[in-house]
């Protein structure tokens, strides 16, 4: 059994995170994204270490950038990163910092950490794939999935992207909003409504329920971009 195979299950993720943060210091931001990240890379996204540069791959953008230990752990479990690389995270020579850098890590689609860039970058990618008519071998369109936090939605730049994507009908774009009630002034009426009113399809699910998450990520057939609001209690 190779080392990669030994750390390739959902049950291994806490141990992988432990290599970075220590066994007991799981911070909230990291843990809130764990199940969503796992379901995406395990069952939704059509991308592997071998296809990480393929034009027709699915693209995942960790927009909020914060607490990336869960992200690195999932990437390691799926073979994008070597497990030993996790140990040195945040050190000078490590490619892994508190905010990910696409130039340093193959498989990471964007450098993030400054809030509110992932959605418009993802919109540009979705438009670029569509303009070039890029299709997978089976004829389907690759998709772009952007993860944002409910606090991150405070940034106005997101709302430029939400409105533009809805109006342009960019249905190869999916946003998953992790809602752990962290926005200082909240979102009265819910996050999903912000997307729906701009022309998106919105689905709300328990962000810990793998089956429900998987179902929620089934591509929209409505010609509209898809917003999945994943409720998580830390």
């Amino acid at each position, binding site marked *: 059994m190779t080392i990669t195979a030994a750390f390739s299950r959902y049950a291994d993720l806490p141990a992988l995170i432990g290599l970075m943060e220590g066994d007991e210091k799981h911070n909230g931001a990291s843990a809130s994204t764990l199940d969503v990240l796992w379901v995406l890379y395990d069952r939704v996204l059509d991308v592997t270490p071998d296809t990480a540069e393929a034009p027709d791959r699915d693209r995942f953008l960790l927009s909020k950038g914060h607490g990336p230990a869960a992200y690195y752990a999932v990437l390691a479990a799926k073979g994008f990163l070597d497990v030993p690389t996790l140990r040195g995270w945040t050190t000078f020579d490590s490619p892994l910092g508190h905010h990910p850098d696409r130039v340093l890590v193959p498989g990471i689609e964007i450098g993030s950490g400054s809030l509110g*860039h992932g959605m*418009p*970058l993802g*919109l*540009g990618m979705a*438009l*670029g794939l569509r303009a070039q008519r*890029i299709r997978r071998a089976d004829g389907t369109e690759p998709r772009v999935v952007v993860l944002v936090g409910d606090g991150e939605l405070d940034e106005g730049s997101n709302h430029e992207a939400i409105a*533009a994507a809805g109006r342009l009908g960019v249905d190869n774009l999916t946003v998953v909003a992790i809602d752990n009630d962290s926005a200082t002034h909240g979102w009265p009426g819910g996050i999903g409504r912000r997307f729906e009113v701009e022309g998106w399809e919105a689905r709300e699910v328990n962000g810990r329920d793998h089956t429900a998450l998987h179902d929620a990520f089934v591509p929209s057939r409505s010609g509209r971009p898809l917003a999945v609001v994943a409720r998580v209690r830390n």
Partner: protein
Amino acid sequence: MRETFAATVNEAMDEDPRTAVVLADISAGMFRRSSLKHPGRVINLGIREQAMIDVAGGLALTGMRPIAHSYAPFLVERPFEQLKIGLGHQDVGAILVSIGGSYDAAEEGRTHQAPEDVAVLDTLPGWTVRVPGHPDEVRDALEQDLPGDHRVYLRLSNTSNRAALPVRPRLHVVRTGSSRSAGVVLAVGPMLDRTLEATADLDVTVAYTSTVRPFDREGLGVLAAAAGNADVLLVEPYLRGTSAHEVSESLADRRHRQLSLGVPRDAELRAYGTPTEHARSHGLDTEGIAKSAREFFLV
């Protein structure tokens, strides 16, 4: 220049499938034909400049060659962090094309003016900055930059010189002073004709460039070494001293004096009127440049 920009890009849209135009309403009508001919490659996001730059970054991440365009303040200043993160940090390129250079939009007031554009962009690494002085130079620059993947800022103006010069990385010597000349005058983009006129009776070398970044340090060093004095007068159409540090680097190996002309940094000019009146107020008309040149070269 704006018409030449649109015509050149519309031609490129027909020839290179990588080309994409990203807009925030400004000039949308100039690309209507391309948007009908090439579905999905002209993207007008409405008045959303932050999205415009990050969307350009996303397009580049899928292999396209995005061109983003608006008035300079809305292209460079409002979405400045998008330039840093959405393009630079992602290690992708785009061509930004601005109009309204410095005070072209004099009647519109301060909100539509951005003489700081090149200076703020200069704080970020890896940008090529073109300041054409003639519409033909706009076409020349785009034909060089469209095929690449680098980050380019192309700053258009309503002011033109009488003749175009080739767009290239090196300084172009327009007039050569004697071996006992007072120094070197470097005119950038639309400043050339008035600078030539203003220095007509001085024994100086006059050089020109429409490519201010990367700056031709070596070329300026050679010209200064050949002049009677290694003194440099820099005439830029935007914020005063924007390239002063480049002149300093160019002449770090020799004693020299230098003076920068441009839009003053110390006060906001709170006036409408015409670009000509603004140029006069900033000392950037022929008379103002002539006066500064005589004083600087101790004539």
